[in-house]
């Protein structure tokens, strides 16, 4: 079968098992004397006010959004970059047009002031 992905699977599985083993050993040997004070949320000794699963501001979403678009873009660029050495100037220009269109998006976001942290 496809051997190389089997190796990767080994790495992922063992990479998950090692921390699980460490945490399990710690769980076995560590004392367990829990009480409500220990279980309370740690906020430097001050009583917790309200829920912590609260609503967050939209700014984070904007950054994730811009990231998503550029992330997808690089996926198109990687095959292009691999082959660029053999394809000559025309392919380079195509890639530059591709990047240029996306930079226009970045410039738009920038000009609208949406990249400002507020």
């Amino acid at each position, binding site marked *: 079968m496809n051997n190389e992905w089997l190796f990767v699977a080994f790495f992922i599985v063992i990479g998950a098992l090692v921390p699980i083993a460490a945490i399990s050993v710690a769980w076995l040997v560590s004392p367990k004397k829990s009480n409500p004070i220990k279980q309370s949320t740690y906020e430097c000794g001050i009583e917790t006010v309200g829920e912590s699963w609260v609503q967050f501001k*939209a700014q984070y*979403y904007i950054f994730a*959004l811009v990231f*998503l*678009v550029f*992330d*997808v873009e690089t*996926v*198109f660029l990687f095959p292009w970059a691999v082959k660029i050495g053999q394809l000559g100037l025309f392919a380079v220009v195509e890639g530059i047009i591709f990047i240029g269109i996306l930079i226009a998006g970045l410039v738009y976001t920038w000009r609208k002031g949406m990249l400002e942290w507020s």
Partner: protein
Amino acid sequence: MIPISWYLTLSAALFSIGLFGVLTRRNAIAILLGIELMLNAVNVNLAAFWRYGDVNQITGQIFAIIVFAVAAAEVAVGLALVISVYRKKNTVIAEEIDLMKW
């Protein structure tokens, strides 16, 4: 070896589950989650047909990549709309967003 039918059945099942989510969930974000499942089902099909057809024809993979781009665009705009609606109407329940219903 694995016959192609296994992949196609997996894809059909994934698609149906996604469809179920889209039809029945009340939360608009959950509906988008269902759509993601359906798009993935399509991609499994494309990859399977690439592998079981002529591997030198890379078309299946190219289509899958373009589906990735479309999925990303769909999620970006869809979630932005949900957030925008939430801000105005204070709800993400699809049935309660009836401004365009007359």
